[in-house]
């Protein structure tokens, strides 16, 4: 009976906790999006200029284009009006029209490119997280293994990814000819739901995917190794040890504690990684959102930049929210604080 009351009380506190979190997230969202709207507009230059610079035509034609597109994009209106119409459009799910990829809607551009990014990135992050943490935990405090593995991890994280990617592409793609070096699938295919296509897609996916796994692996492994060493030094480990607990058990407990900061790291990476495949895309000529965002910035495509960052903002906030929830499960201290058991 007492337990039941406790749980109800706990749920109420949990509700309060979540409401507060959500309010904070909404506020963050509002400010982030406002900044997202403002920053591209403070960049020096004018997107229409960039656009017409790509068009070698007779001078008279260029003048016509300049004035038409300035009006069409509403860039001649007062800033406040541009800002309010931006929010209005946003609530309709309209992110505007891309200038760089005129006249495609920004939402469509992002939704076209995002699946490729996610297909490479999410598996790479999770695989590197899993494997890296396990490896790091495994080698910690094992002298010989540690001495050989650590330099490798450091080399992997520290090697410039651009260089590393080119090396991989060159060795496996051009020298050994095991893998293709460009495209998301064979240039001789069209997108279809077929085995040929799926095989071709995976075949083109392996190199970008594994290059990302390799570079990300080192960071997780090093982090985990250091955390485990720290945890093994902690009082509770010492106590367990003096009680005669097995090494395996002690390591199990240390791992549970050590994983917490890693999960926070994962959340941050998940959110921002949407745009983090830029180098992969360039090195392997792989489609994705990173290159589009970079071009958006270089071309001062206000709408495309806004759209991409909107997705990143949402990504970061969502990932953090999920981690907040995840912590409740993962870390009994938090859970018990909120259910009032402690």
């Amino acid at each position, binding site marked *: 009976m007492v337990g039941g009351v406790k749980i109800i009380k706990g749920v109420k506190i949990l509700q309060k906790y979540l409401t507060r979190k959500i309010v904070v997230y909404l506020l963050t969202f509002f400010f982030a999006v406002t900044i997202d709207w403002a920053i591209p507009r403070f960049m020096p230059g004018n997107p229409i200029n960039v656009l017409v610079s790509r068009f070698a035509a007779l001078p008279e034609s260029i003048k016509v284009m300049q004035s038409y597109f300035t009006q069409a994009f509403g860039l001649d209106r007062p800033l406040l009006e541009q800002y309010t119409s931006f929010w209005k459009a946003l609530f309709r799910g309209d992110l505007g029209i891309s200038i760089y990829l005129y006249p495609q809607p920004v939402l469509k551009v992002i939704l076209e490119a995002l699946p*490729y990014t996610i297909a490479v990135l999410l598996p790479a992050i999770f695989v590197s997280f899993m494997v890296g943490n396990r490896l790091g935990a495994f080698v910690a405090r094992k002298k010989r293994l540690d001495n050989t593995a650590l330099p490798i991890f450091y080399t992997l994280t520290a090697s410039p990814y651009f260089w590393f990617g080119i090396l991989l592409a060159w060795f496996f793609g051009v020298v050994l000819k095991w893998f293709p070096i460009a495209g998301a699938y064979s240039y001789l295919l069209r997108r279809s739901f077929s085995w040929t296509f799926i095989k071709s897609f995976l075949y083109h996916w392996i190199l970008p995917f594994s290059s990302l796994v390799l570079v990300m692996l080192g960071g997780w492994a090093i982090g985990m190794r250091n955390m485990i060493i720290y945890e093994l030094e902690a009082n509770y480990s010492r106590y367990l040890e003096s009680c005669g607990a097995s090494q395996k058990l002690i390591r199990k407990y240390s791992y549970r504690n050590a994983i917490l900061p890693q999960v926070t790291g994962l959340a941050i990476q998940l959110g921002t990684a949407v745009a983090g495949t830029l180098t992969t895309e360039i090195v392997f*000529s792989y489609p994705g959102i990173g290159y589009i965002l970079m071009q958006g910035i270089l071309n001062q495509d206000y709408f495309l930049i806004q759209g991409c960052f909107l997705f990143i903002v949402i990504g970061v906030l969502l990932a953090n929210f999920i981690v907040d929830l995840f912590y409740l499960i993962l870390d009994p201290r938090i859970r018990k604080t909120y259910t009032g058991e402690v």
Partner: protein
Amino acid sequence: MKRLIVLLLIALTIVAFAQTFDRSKTVFVGGGMWSPPSNWSPFTPWNAVTGTIGLVYETLFLYDPLTGKFEPWLAESGSWISDSVFQIKLRNGLTWQDGKPLTIDDVLFTFEIAKKHTGINYSPIWNWLERIVKVDERTLNFVFSDPRYHEWGQNLISIAIIPKHVWEGKTQDEILQSANEKPLGSGSYFVETWDSDRNVFKKNPNWWGIKLLGLDPKPERVVVVRILSNNVAIGMLMKGELDWSNFFLPGIPTLRKAYGVHTWYESAPYMLPANTTGIFLNVNKYPLSIPEFRRAMAFAIDTSKIVDRAFERMVTASNPVGIMPIPGFIKYYPEEVAKQFGFKYDPAMANKILDELGFKDVNKDGFREDPNGRPFKLTIQCPYGWTDWMVSIQSIAEDLRKVGLNVEPIYPDASKYNDDLFAGRFDIILNNYPTGVSSTVWSYFNAVFYPAAAESEYSYSGNFGKYKNPEVTELLDQMNRTPLTNEEGIKKVVAKLSEILLKELPFIPLWYNGAWFQASDAVWKAWPSEKNPYAWPISWGGHWQLGGIKVLFGIKSE
């Protein structure tokens, strides 16, 4: 378990058979598409997928920079029947890709639509075109109030003829804001499919040219691939996965020798010229405002060093006027004027001019001060990341410092660079946007001197340093209104303009940036070259009409 098997079986049956394109009938083209395909509209050629005009839509004429001649395309013939009337005869038997006939009404419509909708990029021709008269079912007379022969020539090779039955009744916004994802043209290829990293053109088996011209596009499919880095392009060329490349690639001698990569010339410069690259000088900024000062700079710059260092001899140094060595341009080259007023690399001469102007190093800091003893500093800029250009402006700054001018290279982002360029906010700027290959050398002089630039806030069409000279305006107008057949007349104007250019130098021409072209013989052979010069081998937007399309008629696969 059973359920799983059932699901798998269903999945298996849904999975269709994929069609794989026949490699021996597919040509992979790269270097002309840098962004994901976003539109196929003939009205927004600035970011339509390359080939939209040329492969899908066609123009009345082609222009071949290799011969310097217009070639009738949709038109059977065209000529000035009087000073102010241009008559075209349309070919008989033209068809749209949907089988409907392409008639004189479509041509008429293409021009009339720009009269109605002033947002269309070629609508300003109606300021000097009075009316179009339909003479008969195959003949149109363009009656001009102010015949601008040279501009008209450019329009003939860049305006895409569009089908009336598709575009009729659309509003201006519908026309200009459409991605036109299913373009319907008259050309030899249509758009079959696309994805973020490619665009697939498929051969139009009923193309009118097969019968009327006896030309047969060899590739069944033209796949324009989006490649984001030179490394990938080189790797693909070496593996034979990229047939036709229009990238700026370093290391051409090695690529040729070790991998048999094909280029236009067998030895340096390997590439045809595509535009005149040089520096625009801000003529409103002291001391760049002194013509003699600008001339001294021209003498101080060693272009051969740039050709060697930045381009590994893939480009050639420009003549002092900057007129490209292509037949349509170079025939107007004013030898005498160039000899008399031209410049060449001669630092002693530069020093002499600067000394005479009174620019001396008074405070002994290694740099000259102005005649009043005040030190000054100039910057020269190009976009960050354009490595060949970055090396070039370093070299230029170095040369200028050698004659005592304090010049520093700076590398803003491309967008900042563009904005500075268009607004004239720079001291010295390296550029080549408006000075490309065209059907008339007028376009080069108009780019160098573009008169409207001096008055307007932004200029997109040249004369970025805002040089002002009413005489030049008059000469440009005069040239524009001199018929292309009157070569002597054009030559005289060119000589006068060249003289002004060499004396005033608001733009110092330095080298001809290349028409980068490398090809692989792995699948397709018989690529155009110096020895077999059947086509201008460039697949960039706007260049299909200059010969890119003809490459597809000439290559062969086994």
